[in-house]
């Protein structure tokens, strides 16, 4: 297993994350409705808004996942925040970075992962909007565009917006 790498801007990134005052806060409909919509549109059993803290990933919103957090070193989202693009693992059991990862070999039985890095207004990638399945998958262009669009809504919420309208 390849542990989740540490970005070059880690100290600034963590400071930006702390300044959001989001870690360990109650659920928020702005994020909850995005994960519900992502799971519905992409037919995924798990959808999360994950924040990458120093030693853990903590889920600001979660659907289909009981644990409120997991260790950072085994997190897929920790890999996803290394670049701004969508990070996709189509079959983790066949990927040497993840094949013996406890999220793959354990009860979650993770096979498919797609994570869109989310950013603070200052540009620090502090987590992801991600979807997970227990079977290998591929994402089509519409599904990718949906995930990108929803990432934008999460970024707006992080910046203090995204309040408009009733929950979807």
């Amino acid at each position, binding site marked *: 297993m390849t542990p989740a790498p540490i970005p070059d801007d880690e100290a600034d990134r963590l400071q930006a994350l702390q300044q959001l005052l989001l870690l360990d806060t109650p659920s928020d409909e702005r994020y909850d*409705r*995005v994960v519900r*919509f992502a799971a*519905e*549109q992409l037919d995924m059993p798990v959808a999360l808004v994950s924040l990458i803290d120093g030693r853990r990933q903590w889920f600001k919103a979660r659907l289909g996942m009981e644990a409120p957090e997991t260790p950072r070193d085994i997190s897929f989202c920790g890999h996803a925040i290394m670049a701004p693009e969508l990070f996709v693992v189509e079959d983790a059991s066949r990927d040497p970075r993840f094949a013996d990862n406890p999220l793959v070999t354990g009860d979650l039985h993770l096979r498919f992962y797609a994570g869109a890095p989310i950013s603070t207004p200052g540009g620090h990638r502090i987590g992801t909007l991600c979807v997970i399945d227990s079977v290998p998958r591929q994402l*089509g*262009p*519409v*599904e990718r*565009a*949906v995930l*990108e*669009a*929803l990432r*934008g*809504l999460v970024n707006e919420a992080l910046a203090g917006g*995204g309040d*408009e*309208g*009733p*929950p*979807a």
Partner: protein
Amino acid sequence: MTAPRSLPRVLLFEPHFVMRRTIVSVARDLAVAEVQDASTIDRARALLAGGAYEGVVLDIDDAARTIDLLGDIRLGRFGSRADAPVVVMAAELRRGEEEQLEALAVTQVLRKPFKIGDLLKIVGARGRQASPQVTR
């Protein structure tokens, strides 16, 4: 050099924030349509009054007001063609509403929840005015 293809202008009325914003963004990113969105029926009316649209997508949770708007479109009271394709999105249709929509020549009724890709396929096939059809 090939000129960029002009996208059809589509008006979307959808009160739910996440659904509305996602449709707009995906339609733009995939170059399916230029979607102008309204979160209220009054805003939809204002947009229709101010410009021409080649297609209209309407949520029908508030059926009476949406059907009134659709009737005004069919009467040619806006800048768009009276026979512009109209897609209706509905969680459920009450007794008589399906017949009302059929009478108003709705192109298609999409039952919620639906995949955004399904809506974009319909929007992308602009100009098609098939008989009303309910997708379940």
